[in-house]
Protein backbone atom coordinates (compact mmCIF):
# COMPACT_ATOMS: atom_id res chain seq x y z
CA UNK A 1 0.00 0.00 0.00
CA UNK A 2 2.66 2.50 1.08
CA UNK A 3 4.69 1.50 -1.92
CA UNK A 4 1.99 2.83 -4.26
CA UNK A 5 2.63 6.41 -3.29
CA UNK A 6 4.83 7.93 -5.95
CA UNK A 7 5.19 11.16 -4.05
CA UNK A 8 8.74 11.29 -2.81
CA UNK A 9 10.04 8.68 -5.25
CA UNK A 10 12.68 9.79 -7.66
CA UNK A 11 12.68 8.47 -11.22
CA UNK A 12 16.14 8.94 -12.72
CA UNK A 13 16.15 10.10 -16.34
CA UNK A 14 18.01 12.59 -18.47
CA UNK A 15 15.56 15.39 -19.19
CA UNK A 16 15.44 19.17 -19.04
CA UNK A 17 12.94 18.95 -16.21
CA UNK A 18 15.28 16.76 -14.19
CA UNK A 19 18.01 19.35 -14.63
CA UNK A 20 15.91 22.34 -13.60
CA UNK A 21 16.67 24.09 -10.34
CA UNK A 22 14.41 22.64 -7.63
CA UNK A 23 13.24 26.14 -6.72
CA UNK A 24 11.88 26.56 -10.24
CA UNK A 25 10.04 23.27 -9.95
CA UNK A 26 8.65 24.15 -6.54
CA UNK A 27 7.32 27.50 -7.72
CA UNK A 28 5.96 25.95 -10.93
CA UNK A 29 4.17 23.23 -8.98
CA UNK A 30 2.65 25.66 -6.51
CA UNK A 31 1.49 27.90 -9.31
CA UNK A 32 0.17 24.97 -11.27
CA UNK A 33 -1.92 23.84 -8.31
CA UNK A 34 -3.27 27.33 -7.77
CA UNK A 35 -4.14 27.57 -11.46
CA UNK A 36 -6.20 24.38 -11.17
CA UNK A 37 -8.47 26.06 -8.66
CA UNK A 38 -8.55 29.56 -10.02
CA UNK A 39 -9.17 28.78 -13.67
CA UNK A 40 -12.08 26.35 -13.43
CA UNK A 41 -13.48 26.32 -16.95
CA UNK A 42 -13.50 23.77 -19.75
CA UNK A 43 -11.34 25.90 -22.03
CA UNK A 44 -8.79 26.46 -19.29
CA UNK A 45 -8.67 22.76 -18.46
CA UNK A 46 -7.95 21.97 -22.07
CA UNK A 47 -4.94 24.28 -21.88
CA UNK A 48 -3.88 22.77 -18.52
CA UNK A 49 -4.22 19.26 -19.94
CA UNK A 50 -2.11 20.08 -22.97
CA UNK A 51 0.58 21.67 -20.80
CA UNK A 52 0.60 18.72 -18.42
CA UNK A 53 0.86 16.17 -21.23
CA UNK A 54 3.66 18.23 -22.74
CA UNK A 55 5.56 18.38 -19.45
CA UNK A 56 5.19 14.62 -18.89
CA UNK A 57 6.52 13.95 -22.37
CA UNK A 58 9.49 16.23 -21.82
CA UNK A 59 10.23 14.69 -18.40
CA UNK A 60 10.70 11.20 -19.95
CA UNK A 61 8.97 9.65 -16.95
CA UNK A 62 6.64 6.86 -18.11
CA UNK A 63 2.96 7.76 -17.71
CA UNK A 64 2.44 4.44 -15.92
CA UNK A 65 4.67 5.71 -13.11
CA UNK A 66 2.62 8.88 -12.72
CA UNK A 67 -0.61 6.95 -12.57
CA UNK A 68 0.64 4.79 -9.73
CA UNK A 69 0.35 7.78 -7.42
CA UNK A 70 -3.35 7.97 -8.21
CA UNK A 71 -4.06 4.59 -6.72
CA UNK A 72 -3.43 5.93 -3.23
CA UNK A 73 -6.07 8.65 -3.60
CA UNK A 74 -8.65 6.57 -5.46
CA UNK A 75 -10.97 6.27 -2.48
CA UNK A 76 -10.73 9.95 -1.68
CA UNK A 77 -11.56 10.77 -5.26
CA UNK A 78 -14.51 8.40 -5.35
CA UNK A 79 -16.01 9.92 -2.22
CA UNK A 80 -15.52 13.47 -3.50
CA UNK A 81 -17.11 12.64 -6.83
CA UNK A 82 -20.11 10.89 -5.27
CA UNK A 83 -20.75 13.68 -2.79
CA UNK A 84 -20.57 16.35 -5.45
CA UNK A 85 -22.63 14.34 -7.86
CA UNK A 86 -25.60 13.82 -5.54
CA UNK A 87 -25.48 16.75 -3.19
CA UNK A 88 -25.17 19.70 -5.55
CA UNK A 89 -28.50 21.51 -5.93
CA UNK A 90 -29.58 22.64 -9.42
CA UNK A 91 -31.35 21.44 -12.55
CA UNK A 92 -32.16 17.71 -12.18
CA UNK A 93 -30.92 15.41 -14.93
CA UNK A 94 -31.48 11.91 -13.58
CA UNK A 95 -33.54 10.78 -10.61
CA UNK A 96 -32.73 7.46 -8.95
CA UNK A 97 -34.92 6.66 -5.94
CA UNK A 98 -34.40 9.62 -3.58
CA UNK A 99 -31.16 10.73 -5.16
CA UNK A 100 -31.01 13.40 -7.77
CA UNK A 101 -28.17 14.07 -10.11
CA UNK A 102 -28.10 17.64 -11.28
CA UNK A 103 -26.41 19.27 -14.21
CA UNK A 104 -24.39 21.36 -11.80
CA UNK A 105 -23.54 18.20 -9.85
CA UNK A 106 -22.07 16.53 -12.89
CA UNK A 107 -20.08 19.64 -13.67
CA UNK A 108 -18.69 20.05 -10.14
CA UNK A 109 -17.94 16.33 -9.80
CA UNK A 110 -16.08 16.26 -13.10
CA UNK A 111 -14.10 19.39 -12.26
CA UNK A 112 -13.29 18.05 -8.81
CA UNK A 113 -12.05 14.76 -10.23
CA UNK A 114 -9.92 16.50 -12.82
CA UNK A 115 -8.47 18.85 -10.21
CA UNK A 116 -7.51 15.99 -7.90
CA UNK A 117 -5.97 13.91 -10.66
CA UNK A 118 -4.02 16.85 -12.06
CA UNK A 119 -2.94 17.91 -8.60
CA UNK A 120 -1.46 14.48 -7.89
CA UNK A 121 0.05 14.06 -11.35
CA UNK A 122 1.48 17.58 -11.23
CA UNK A 123 3.13 17.14 -7.86
CA UNK A 124 4.29 13.63 -8.75
CA UNK A 125 5.95 15.16 -11.78
CA UNK A 126 7.98 17.35 -9.46
CA UNK A 127 8.91 14.62 -6.97
CA UNK A 128 9.67 12.09 -9.70
CA UNK A 129 12.08 14.46 -11.43
CA UNK A 130 13.71 15.95 -8.34
CA UNK A 131 15.89 14.02 -5.91
CA UNK A 132 14.66 14.36 -2.33
CA UNK A 133 17.91 16.12 -1.56
CA UNK A 134 17.41 18.74 -4.25
CA UNK A 135 13.89 19.18 -3.04
CA UNK A 136 14.95 19.93 0.52
CA UNK A 137 17.76 22.14 -0.73
CA UNK A 138 15.26 23.96 -2.91
CA UNK A 139 12.96 24.47 0.02
CA UNK A 140 15.75 25.59 2.28
CA UNK A 141 17.01 28.18 -0.13
CA UNK A 142 13.70 29.08 -1.75
CA UNK A 143 12.01 29.67 1.60
CA UNK A 144 14.95 31.40 3.21
CA UNK A 145 12.98 34.65 3.36
CA UNK A 146 10.82 33.02 6.06
CA UNK A 147 13.76 33.27 8.45
CA UNK A 148 12.72 36.86 8.98
CA UNK A 149 9.61 35.50 10.67
CA UNK A 150 11.77 33.21 12.84
CA UNK A 151 10.83 30.11 10.89
CA UNK A 152 13.71 27.60 11.35
CA UNK A 153 14.02 26.92 7.63
CA UNK A 154 17.39 25.16 7.77
CA UNK A 155 16.30 22.91 10.61
CA UNK A 156 13.08 21.96 8.85
CA UNK A 157 14.97 21.13 5.66
CA UNK A 158 17.50 19.06 7.64
CA UNK A 159 14.69 17.18 9.36
CA UNK A 160 13.03 16.48 6.04
CA UNK A 161 16.18 15.11 4.49
CA UNK A 162 16.85 12.92 7.54
CA UNK A 163 13.28 11.68 7.39
CA UNK A 164 13.76 10.84 3.72
CA UNK A 165 16.88 8.90 4.54
CA UNK A 166 15.30 6.94 7.39
CA UNK A 167 11.85 6.18 6.00
CA UNK A 168 13.07 3.21 3.92
CA UNK A 169 15.13 1.93 6.86
CA UNK A 170 12.17 2.10 9.22
CA UNK A 171 9.90 0.46 6.65
CA UNK A 172 12.28 -2.44 6.37
CA UNK A 173 12.50 -2.60 10.13
CA UNK A 174 8.71 -2.66 10.44
CA UNK A 175 8.63 -5.63 8.11
CA UNK A 176 11.31 -7.41 10.15
CA UNK A 177 9.63 -6.84 13.51
CA UNK A 178 6.30 -7.89 12.07
CA UNK A 179 7.79 -11.15 10.88
CA UNK A 180 9.54 -11.72 14.19
CA UNK A 181 6.29 -11.25 16.09
CA UNK A 182 4.44 -13.47 13.63
CA UNK A 183 7.02 -16.14 14.40
CA UNK A 184 5.89 -15.74 18.02
CA UNK A 185 2.31 -16.38 16.95
CA UNK A 186 1.19 -12.75 16.70
CA UNK A 187 -1.72 -12.14 14.38
CA UNK A 188 -1.90 -8.79 12.60
CA UNK A 189 -4.78 -9.61 10.29
CA UNK A 190 -7.83 -11.15 11.93
CA UNK A 191 -10.17 -9.72 14.56
CA UNK A 192 -12.14 -6.52 14.93
CA UNK A 193 -10.80 -3.00 15.02
CA UNK A 194 -10.00 -3.02 18.73
CA UNK A 195 -8.26 -6.38 18.58
CA UNK A 196 -6.29 -5.21 15.56
CA UNK A 197 -5.27 -1.98 17.29
CA UNK A 198 -4.21 -3.90 20.38
CA UNK A 199 -2.31 -6.30 18.18
CA UNK A 200 -0.17 -3.42 16.96
CA UNK A 201 1.45 -2.89 20.36
CA UNK A 202 4.07 -5.62 19.80
CA UNK A 203 4.95 -3.91 16.54
CA UNK A 204 4.86 -0.27 17.60
CA UNK A 205 6.76 -0.49 20.88
CA UNK A 206 9.88 -2.07 19.33
CA UNK A 207 9.61 0.30 16.39
CA UNK A 208 9.56 3.37 18.63
CA UNK A 209 12.38 2.04 20.77
CA UNK A 210 14.43 1.47 17.65
CA UNK A 211 13.58 4.86 16.17
CA UNK A 212 14.69 6.61 19.36
CA UNK A 213 17.89 4.60 19.48
CA UNK A 214 18.62 5.51 15.89
CA UNK A 215 17.84 9.17 16.53
CA UNK A 216 20.22 9.15 19.47
CA UNK A 217 22.99 7.51 17.45
CA UNK A 218 22.44 9.87 14.56
CA UNK A 219 22.56 12.95 16.74
CA UNK A 220 25.88 11.78 18.14
CA UNK A 221 27.26 11.01 14.69
CA UNK A 222 26.20 14.44 13.41
CA UNK A 223 27.80 16.14 16.35
CA UNK A 224 30.97 14.14 15.88
CA UNK A 225 31.08 15.37 12.31
CA UNK A 226 30.96 18.95 13.45
CA UNK A 227 27.31 19.74 12.80
CA UNK A 228 26.24 22.93 14.55
CA UNK A 229 23.24 24.17 12.63
CA UNK A 230 23.06 25.97 9.32
CA UNK A 231 25.43 28.81 10.32
CA UNK A 232 28.55 28.86 8.16
CA UNK A 233 27.70 25.68 6.31
CA UNK A 234 28.68 25.28 2.69
CA UNK A 235 27.01 22.99 0.17
CA UNK A 236 28.41 20.35 -2.14
CA UNK A 237 25.79 21.31 -4.70
CA UNK A 238 24.94 24.96 -4.16
CA UNK A 239 21.89 26.11 -6.08
CA UNK A 240 22.28 28.73 -8.75
CA UNK A 241 20.03 29.62 -11.66
CA UNK A 242 21.04 28.71 -15.20
CA UNK A 243 19.52 30.13 -18.37
CA UNK A 244 17.15 27.16 -18.60
CA UNK A 245 15.80 28.07 -15.18
CA UNK A 246 15.13 31.63 -16.28
CA UNK A 247 13.44 30.25 -19.39
CA UNK A 248 11.27 28.07 -17.20
CA UNK A 249 10.20 31.06 -15.13
CA UNK A 250 9.37 32.90 -18.34
CA UNK A 251 7.31 29.97 -19.58
CA UNK A 252 5.47 30.05 -16.29
CA UNK A 253 4.44 33.66 -16.91
CA UNK A 254 3.36 32.74 -20.43
CA UNK A 255 1.31 29.85 -19.01
CA UNK A 256 -0.53 32.18 -16.61
CA UNK A 257 -1.07 34.78 -19.31
CA UNK A 258 -2.53 32.19 -21.69
CA UNK A 259 -4.83 30.89 -18.98
CA UNK A 260 -6.12 34.39 -18.22
CA UNK A 261 -6.75 35.06 -21.90
CA UNK A 262 -8.49 31.74 -22.40
CA UNK A 263 -10.58 32.31 -19.32
CA UNK A 264 -11.80 35.63 -20.73
CA UNK A 265 -12.18 34.51 -24.36
CA UNK A 266 -13.65 31.11 -23.39
CA UNK A 267 -13.60 29.70 -26.97
CA UNK A 268 -14.97 26.24 -26.14
CA UNK A 269 -17.81 27.54 -24.02
CA UNK A 270 -18.84 29.99 -26.75
CA UNK A 271 -18.71 27.18 -29.32
CA UNK A 272 -20.85 24.85 -27.23
CA UNK A 273 -23.06 27.66 -26.10
CA UNK A 274 -22.77 26.96 -22.39
CA UNK A 275 -22.67 29.40 -19.57
CA UNK A 276 -19.28 30.32 -18.17
Amino acid at each position, binding site marked *: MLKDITLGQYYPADSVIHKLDPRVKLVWTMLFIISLFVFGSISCYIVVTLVLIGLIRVSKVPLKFMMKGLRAIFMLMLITVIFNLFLTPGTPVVQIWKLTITKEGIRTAAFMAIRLVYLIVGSSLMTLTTTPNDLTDGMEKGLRFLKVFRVPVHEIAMMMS*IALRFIPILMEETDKIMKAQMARGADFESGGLIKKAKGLVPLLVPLFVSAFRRAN*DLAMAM*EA*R*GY*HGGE*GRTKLRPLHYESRDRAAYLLMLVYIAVLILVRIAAPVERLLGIAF
Partner: protein
Amino acid sequence: MKIIKGKDLVYEYIKFTDEGEAEAKVRAVDGVEIEAEPGDFIAILGHNGSGKSTLAKHLNAILTPTEGTLYVDGKDTRDENSLWQIRQTAGMVFQNPDNQIIGTVVDEDVAFGPENMGVPVEELWKRVEKSLRAVGMWEYRSHSPNKLSGGQKQRIAIAGIVAMQPKCIVLDEPTAMLDPVGRREVIRTVMELNRTQHVTVILITHYMEEAILADRVMVMDSGKVILQGTPREVFSKVEFMREHRLDVPQVTQLAWELKRAGLDLPDGILTTEELADALDAIRGGE
Protein backbone atom coordinates in the same frame (compact mmCIF):
# COMPACT_ATOMS: atom_id res chain seq x y z
CA MET B 1 54.13 15.93 20.04
CA LYS B 2 51.77 13.21 21.11
CA ILE B 3 48.47 13.28 19.25
CA ILE B 4 46.61 11.83 22.21
CA LYS B 5 47.67 12.22 25.80
CA GLY B 6 45.29 11.17 28.55
CA LYS B 7 46.21 10.96 32.21
CA ASP B 8 44.26 9.41 35.11
CA LEU B 9 41.06 9.51 33.10
CA VAL B 10 37.91 8.85 35.09
CA TYR B 11 34.38 8.99 33.81
CA GLU B 12 31.53 8.69 36.25
CA TYR B 13 27.84 8.89 35.68
CA ILE B 14 24.91 8.63 38.01
CA LYS B 15 22.36 5.93 37.49
CA PHE B 16 18.79 6.84 38.33
CA THR B 17 15.99 4.62 39.55
CA ASP B 18 12.56 4.60 37.90
CA GLU B 19 11.46 7.24 40.40
CA GLY B 20 14.24 9.52 39.29
CA GLU B 21 16.33 9.17 42.43
CA ALA B 22 20.06 8.81 42.20
CA GLU B 23 20.78 5.14 42.69
CA ALA B 24 24.44 4.62 42.18
CA LYS B 25 27.55 6.21 40.78
CA VAL B 26 29.01 4.18 37.96
CA ARG B 27 32.67 4.44 37.06
CA ALA B 28 32.71 3.57 33.37
CA VAL B 29 36.33 4.62 32.94
CA ASP B 30 38.58 4.23 35.94
CA GLY B 31 42.06 5.72 35.92
CA VAL B 32 43.08 5.14 32.32
CA GLU B 33 46.32 6.40 30.77
CA ILE B 34 46.33 6.60 27.01
CA GLU B 35 48.97 7.99 24.70
CA ALA B 36 49.39 7.87 20.96
CA GLU B 37 52.09 9.16 18.64
CA PRO B 38 51.04 10.44 15.21
CA GLY B 39 50.69 7.46 12.85
CA ASP B 40 50.12 4.89 15.60
CA PHE B 41 47.60 2.10 15.20
CA ILE B 42 46.18 1.22 18.59
CA ALA B 43 43.53 -1.41 19.23
CA ILE B 44 41.43 -1.33 22.37
CA LEU B 45 40.06 -4.76 23.15
CA GLY B 46 37.43 -5.61 25.71
CA HIS B 47 33.93 -6.85 26.39
CA ASN B 48 30.75 -4.88 26.13
CA GLY B 49 30.57 -2.76 29.24
CA SER B 50 34.35 -2.74 29.75
CA GLY B 51 34.42 1.01 29.24
CA LYS B 52 36.16 0.94 25.88
CA SER B 53 33.37 2.77 24.03
CA THR B 54 33.07 5.35 26.80
CA LEU B 55 36.79 5.97 26.53
CA ALA B 56 36.49 6.29 22.75
CA LYS B 57 33.82 8.97 23.06
CA HIS B 58 36.26 11.05 25.11
CA LEU B 59 38.73 11.15 22.26
CA ASN B 60 36.60 13.51 20.22
CA ALA B 61 35.00 15.31 23.11
CA ILE B 62 31.54 13.79 22.89
CA LEU B 63 32.20 13.06 26.56
CA THR B 64 34.59 14.89 28.84
CA PRO B 65 36.43 13.27 31.73
CA THR B 66 35.09 13.58 35.27
CA GLU B 67 38.66 13.45 36.56
CA GLY B 68 42.03 13.56 34.87
CA THR B 69 43.03 15.33 31.67
CA LEU B 70 42.88 14.49 28.02
CA TYR B 71 44.75 16.38 25.33
CA VAL B 72 44.03 15.79 21.66
CA ASP B 73 46.72 17.31 19.47
CA GLY B 74 47.63 19.60 22.35
CA LYS B 75 44.06 20.78 23.01
CA ASP B 76 42.29 20.11 26.28
CA THR B 77 39.00 18.34 25.53
CA ARG B 78 37.30 20.17 28.41
CA ASP B 79 37.92 23.52 26.75
CA GLU B 80 34.66 24.42 24.99
CA ASN B 81 36.46 26.74 22.60
CA SER B 82 38.50 23.95 21.03
CA LEU B 83 35.50 21.63 20.66
CA TRP B 84 35.15 21.90 16.87
CA GLN B 85 38.87 21.75 16.35
CA ILE B 86 39.07 18.53 18.38
CA ARG B 87 36.22 16.97 16.45
CA GLN B 88 38.01 17.82 13.26
CA THR B 89 41.30 16.42 14.53
CA ALA B 90 39.83 13.17 15.84
CA GLY B 91 37.07 11.85 13.60
CA MET B 92 34.81 9.12 14.85
CA VAL B 93 33.23 6.12 13.14
CA PHE B 94 30.44 4.33 15.02
CA GLN B 95 29.14 0.78 15.18
CA ASN B 96 25.86 0.94 13.30
CA PRO B 97 26.50 1.94 9.69
CA ASP B 98 22.87 2.95 9.12
CA ASN B 99 22.70 5.36 12.01
CA GLN B 100 25.64 7.55 11.04
CA ILE B 101 24.95 8.16 7.37
CA ILE B 102 23.08 11.43 7.00
CA GLY B 103 22.98 12.02 3.25
CA THR B 104 20.57 10.30 0.89
CA VAL B 105 23.27 10.08 -1.77
CA VAL B 106 26.77 8.74 -1.08
CA ASP B 107 28.74 11.83 -2.17
CA GLU B 108 26.49 14.18 -0.22
CA ASP B 109 27.00 12.15 2.90
CA VAL B 110 30.76 12.25 2.52
CA ALA B 111 30.52 16.02 2.11
CA PHE B 112 28.52 16.48 5.32
CA GLY B 113 31.49 16.94 7.65
CA PRO B 114 33.45 19.38 5.47
CA GLU B 115 30.19 21.26 4.73
CA ASN B 116 29.81 21.82 8.45
CA MET B 117 33.34 23.16 8.53
CA GLY B 118 32.45 25.64 5.79
CA VAL B 119 34.85 24.25 3.19
CA PRO B 120 34.34 26.04 -0.17
CA VAL B 121 32.58 24.17 -2.99
CA GLU B 122 35.58 23.48 -5.20
CA GLU B 123 37.58 22.10 -2.30
CA LEU B 124 34.53 20.07 -1.19
CA TRP B 125 34.45 18.17 -4.46
CA LYS B 126 38.18 17.49 -4.29
CA ARG B 127 37.85 16.11 -0.80
CA VAL B 128 34.82 13.98 -1.65
CA GLU B 129 36.59 12.41 -4.59
CA LYS B 130 39.82 11.87 -2.69
CA SER B 131 38.17 10.25 0.31
CA LEU B 132 35.82 8.08 -1.72
CA ARG B 133 38.78 6.86 -3.74
CA ALA B 134 40.72 6.20 -0.54
CA VAL B 135 38.02 3.79 0.65
CA GLY B 136 37.44 2.34 -2.80
CA MET B 137 33.88 3.59 -3.13
CA TRP B 138 34.23 6.26 -5.83
CA GLU B 139 32.13 4.27 -8.31
CA TYR B 140 29.27 4.34 -5.85
CA ARG B 141 29.24 8.14 -5.43
CA SER B 142 25.74 8.64 -6.84
CA HIS B 143 24.17 5.60 -5.15
CA SER B 144 21.70 5.66 -2.33
CA PRO B 145 23.37 4.36 0.85
CA ASN B 146 20.34 2.16 1.51
CA LYS B 147 21.21 -0.13 -1.35
CA LEU B 148 24.77 -0.81 -0.17
CA SER B 149 26.08 -3.69 1.94
CA GLY B 150 27.05 -3.19 5.57
CA GLY B 151 30.75 -3.14 4.75
CA GLN B 152 30.24 -0.61 1.97
CA LYS B 153 28.14 1.63 4.22
CA GLN B 154 30.84 1.53 6.85
CA ARG B 155 33.45 2.51 4.24
CA ILE B 156 31.23 5.46 3.29
CA ALA B 157 31.14 6.46 6.95
CA ILE B 158 34.94 6.27 7.03
CA ALA B 159 35.16 8.37 3.86
CA GLY B 160 32.90 10.92 5.55
CA ILE B 161 35.47 11.22 8.33
CA VAL B 162 38.48 11.17 6.01
CA ALA B 163 36.96 14.11 4.10
CA MET B 164 37.33 16.17 7.28
CA GLN B 165 41.08 15.51 7.02
CA PRO B 166 41.54 14.41 10.61
CA LYS B 167 44.91 13.49 12.07
CA CYS B 168 43.33 10.67 14.00
CA ILE B 169 40.37 8.35 13.40
CA VAL B 170 38.61 6.65 16.29
CA LEU B 171 36.54 3.64 15.26
CA ASP B 172 34.07 2.36 17.83
CA GLU B 173 33.40 -1.31 16.99
CA PRO B 174 33.05 -0.55 13.29
CA THR B 175 32.76 -4.23 12.36
CA ALA B 176 30.50 -5.59 15.10
CA MET B 177 27.44 -5.62 12.84
CA LEU B 178 29.16 -6.83 9.68
CA ASP B 179 29.69 -10.22 8.09
CA PRO B 180 33.25 -11.54 7.55
CA VAL B 181 33.50 -10.06 4.05
CA GLY B 182 32.39 -6.64 5.29
CA ARG B 183 34.72 -6.89 8.25
CA ARG B 184 37.70 -7.56 6.02
CA GLU B 185 36.77 -4.66 3.69
CA VAL B 186 36.59 -2.22 6.58
CA ILE B 187 39.79 -3.35 8.28
CA ARG B 188 41.70 -3.32 5.01
CA THR B 189 40.50 0.25 4.43
CA VAL B 190 41.56 1.34 7.91
CA MET B 191 44.99 -0.30 7.56
CA GLU B 192 45.47 1.40 4.22
CA LEU B 193 44.72 4.83 5.70
CA ASN B 194 47.13 4.16 8.51
CA ARG B 195 49.93 2.90 6.30
CA THR B 196 49.73 5.26 3.33
CA GLN B 197 48.38 8.46 4.86
CA HIS B 198 49.78 7.98 8.35
CA VAL B 199 46.48 8.69 10.01
CA THR B 200 46.52 7.71 13.68
CA VAL B 201 44.00 4.92 14.21
CA ILE B 202 42.31 3.98 17.46
CA LEU B 203 40.28 0.85 16.83
CA ILE B 204 37.82 -0.29 19.48
CA THR B 205 36.89 -3.90 18.89
CA HIS B 206 36.15 -7.22 20.44
CA TYR B 207 37.59 -9.21 17.57
CA MET B 208 41.09 -10.39 18.29
CA GLU B 209 41.87 -10.96 14.59
CA GLU B 210 41.57 -7.18 14.16
CA ALA B 211 43.58 -6.32 17.25
CA ILE B 212 46.47 -8.46 15.96
CA LEU B 213 47.02 -5.97 13.13
CA ALA B 214 47.65 -3.05 15.50
CA ASP B 215 51.00 -1.70 16.67
CA ARG B 216 49.78 -1.77 20.22
CA VAL B 217 46.86 -3.44 22.00
CA MET B 218 45.16 -2.20 25.16
CA VAL B 219 42.88 -4.66 26.93
CA MET B 220 40.16 -3.10 29.05
CA ASP B 221 37.91 -4.55 31.72
CA SER B 222 35.68 -2.79 34.27
CA GLY B 223 36.91 0.60 33.13
CA LYS B 224 40.57 -0.20 33.65
CA VAL B 225 43.38 -1.09 31.28
CA ILE B 226 44.34 -4.57 32.48
CA LEU B 227 46.95 -5.42 29.90
CA GLN B 228 48.81 -3.67 27.12
CA GLY B 229 51.65 -4.22 24.75
CA THR B 230 52.35 -5.40 21.24
CA PRO B 231 49.85 -7.95 19.90
CA ARG B 232 52.48 -10.62 20.42
CA GLU B 233 52.97 -9.67 24.05
CA VAL B 234 49.26 -9.49 24.71
CA PHE B 235 48.18 -12.67 22.97
CA SER B 236 50.99 -14.75 24.40
CA LYS B 237 49.17 -14.37 27.73
CA VAL B 238 46.73 -17.06 26.66
CA GLU B 239 45.70 -17.99 30.17
CA PHE B 240 45.10 -14.39 31.22
CA MET B 241 43.04 -13.70 28.11
CA ARG B 242 40.95 -16.80 28.58
CA GLU B 243 40.33 -15.97 32.21
CA HIS B 244 38.83 -12.72 31.01
CA ARG B 245 36.96 -14.66 28.37
CA LEU B 246 38.60 -12.92 25.47
CA ASP B 247 39.56 -14.75 22.30
CA VAL B 248 43.07 -15.51 21.23
CA PRO B 249 43.83 -16.73 17.69
CA GLN B 250 43.35 -20.48 17.31
CA VAL B 251 46.98 -20.83 16.29
CA THR B 252 48.18 -19.05 19.45
CA GLN B 253 45.92 -21.17 21.59
CA LEU B 254 47.08 -24.36 19.87
CA ALA B 255 50.71 -23.41 20.39
CA TRP B 256 50.01 -22.72 24.04
CA GLU B 257 48.24 -26.07 24.52
CA LEU B 258 51.11 -27.89 22.80
CA LYS B 259 53.58 -26.11 25.01
CA ARG B 260 51.67 -27.20 28.06
CA ALA B 261 51.76 -30.75 26.73
CA GLY B 262 55.54 -30.53 26.82
CA LEU B 263 56.60 -29.23 23.41
CA ASP B 264 59.38 -26.68 23.38
CA LEU B 265 57.62 -23.83 21.55
CA PRO B 266 58.31 -20.10 21.81
CA ASP B 267 55.73 -17.75 23.36
CA GLY B 268 53.41 -15.56 21.34
CA ILE B 269 53.05 -17.46 18.10
CA LEU B 270 50.60 -15.50 15.98
CA THR B 271 50.63 -17.01 12.50
CA THR B 272 50.25 -20.41 10.89
CA GLU B 273 53.76 -20.15 9.39
CA GLU B 274 55.36 -19.40 12.75
CA LEU B 275 53.75 -22.45 14.30
CA ALA B 276 54.57 -24.71 11.35
CA ASP B 277 58.22 -23.54 11.41
CA ALA B 278 58.52 -24.15 15.15
CA LEU B 279 56.92 -27.59 14.86
CA ASP B 280 59.17 -28.49 11.92
CA ALA B 281 62.18 -27.60 14.04
CA ILE B 282 61.01 -29.93 16.81
CA ARG B 283 60.25 -32.73 14.39
CA GLY B 284 63.60 -32.29 12.61
CA GLY B 285 65.35 -32.49 15.95
CA GLU B 286 63.90 -35.87 16.83
